């Protein structure tokens, strides 16, 4: 399989990428690591006429500490996020989850920003970014703006980014509570999560329990009200709308969510 024909363009700077995107309009797409987009293009599920390769914009690949938060460039690969000493010490949940994406080859190419803008509800990192209360920084024709993670994921493959906007940075505050856990249930190692749960302190987010990553609000409220973790986890499926597919029906996903949140809360507390 090869993708349908397209015109390849290479951006030498963020400004050039934005102007190429403005020229290309609806027919253009940014290409970062390409590990979500190229498979979709091979299957003709995406047929852009122009690909704007931003993969060489090394100014968007970094991890640094800034004014009390950790800033990660959108083009930082999963491998580089997972092996960053700074992420490992300050945001171990993100380091661990980045090291669980796909397989080593995929982690060498796939980028944090790419997995977020792809907005696949079965993706691991959108839920992690959501539970960590991150802020996403985008640049576009109208300038620069910041989008809270809670407002970024709008639906299956849809985000709050406007046409021509480029995600440039993910800002993550230091977590208030140290304990963390990432639970992912898959059939095979490299599969997407059938269901997953990301836990940081008393904050919980769910993978693949709706058309976007979701905060498990009922669990968080129960914990805030003093419920024991095992009791709070019983609320994990409340307010969710899990998809049904060949791997799992709704009832099974709801069951998995309760089990994985219970395990995640227990593990997070053991690390606190």
């Amino acid at each position, binding site marked *: *399989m*090869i*993708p*349908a*024909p*397209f*015109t*390849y363009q*290479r951006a030498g700077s963020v400004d050039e990428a934005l102007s190429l995107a403005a020229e290309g309009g609806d027919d253009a797409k940014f*290409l970062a690591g*390409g*590990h979500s987009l*190229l*498979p979709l293009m*091979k299957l003709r599920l995406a047929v852009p006429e122009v*690909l704007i*390769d931003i*993969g060489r914009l090394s100014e968007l690949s970094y991890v640094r500490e800034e004014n009390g938060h950790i800033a990660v460039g959108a083009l930082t690969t999963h*491998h580089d996020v997972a092996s960053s000493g700074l992420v490992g010490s300050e945001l171990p949940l993100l380091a661990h989850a980045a090291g669980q994406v*796909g*397989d*080593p*080859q*995929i982690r*060498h*190419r796939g980028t944090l920003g790419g997995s977020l803008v792809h907005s696949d509800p079965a993706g691991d990192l959108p839920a992690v970014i959501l539970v960590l209360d991150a802020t996403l920084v985008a640049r576009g024709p109208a300038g620069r703006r910041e989008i809270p993670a809670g407002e970024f994921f709008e639906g299956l493959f849809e985000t709050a980014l406007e046409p021509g906007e480029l995600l440039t940075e993910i800002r993550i505050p230091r977590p208030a509570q140290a304990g963390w856990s990432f639970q992912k249930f898959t059939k095979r*190692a*490299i599969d997407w999560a059938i269901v997953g749960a990301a836990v940081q302190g008393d904050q919980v987010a769910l993978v693949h329990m709706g058309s976007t990553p979701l905060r498990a609000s009922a669990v968080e409220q129960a914990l805030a009200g003093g419920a024991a973790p095992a009791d709070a986890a019983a609320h994990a499926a409340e307010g969710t709308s899990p998809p049904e597919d060949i791997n799992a029906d709704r009832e099974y996903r709801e069951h998995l969510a309760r089990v994985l949140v219970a395990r995640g809360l227990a593990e997070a507390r053991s690390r606190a």
Partner: protein
Amino acid sequence: MKVSMTVNGRTVDADVPDRTLLVHFLREVAGLTATNVGCDTTSCGACTVLLDGQSVKSCTVLAAQADGHQVTTVEGLANGDGEMHPVQRAFHLEHGLQCGFCTPGMVMATVSLLAENPRPTEEEVRTGLEGNLCRCTGYHNIVRAVLAAAEGGDI
């Protein structure tokens, strides 16, 4: 578009369609057919090569993305005298293959794994090769081969 990359130390230039995948560039333009196309969906790892020293699945990389970069395929591992690379030797000695289709990708994934983690545990070998499928061996001899290569050092 015009693409130029260094493959196994040799410069390969060609004018190829923009949508050309790296694996097809390697097989059809560079003439290096050891790298196999297996699943073609970023799953099986048969097409694994090194891009600037890191393992990648070349069915999911455009030739244009590798333009100007260094690519190593299994043909580039043996030294000039034809002496096998330690990882190749370990797969040979431990019989880490049966039909051999996955082997070029397994060997390249192993070279990358050992570059990042020269002394992996058995579990680290198994998770480090999660991106490579073998339908013959049940993986046991492949894991033995990787551990033997690591034990021998000099990767």
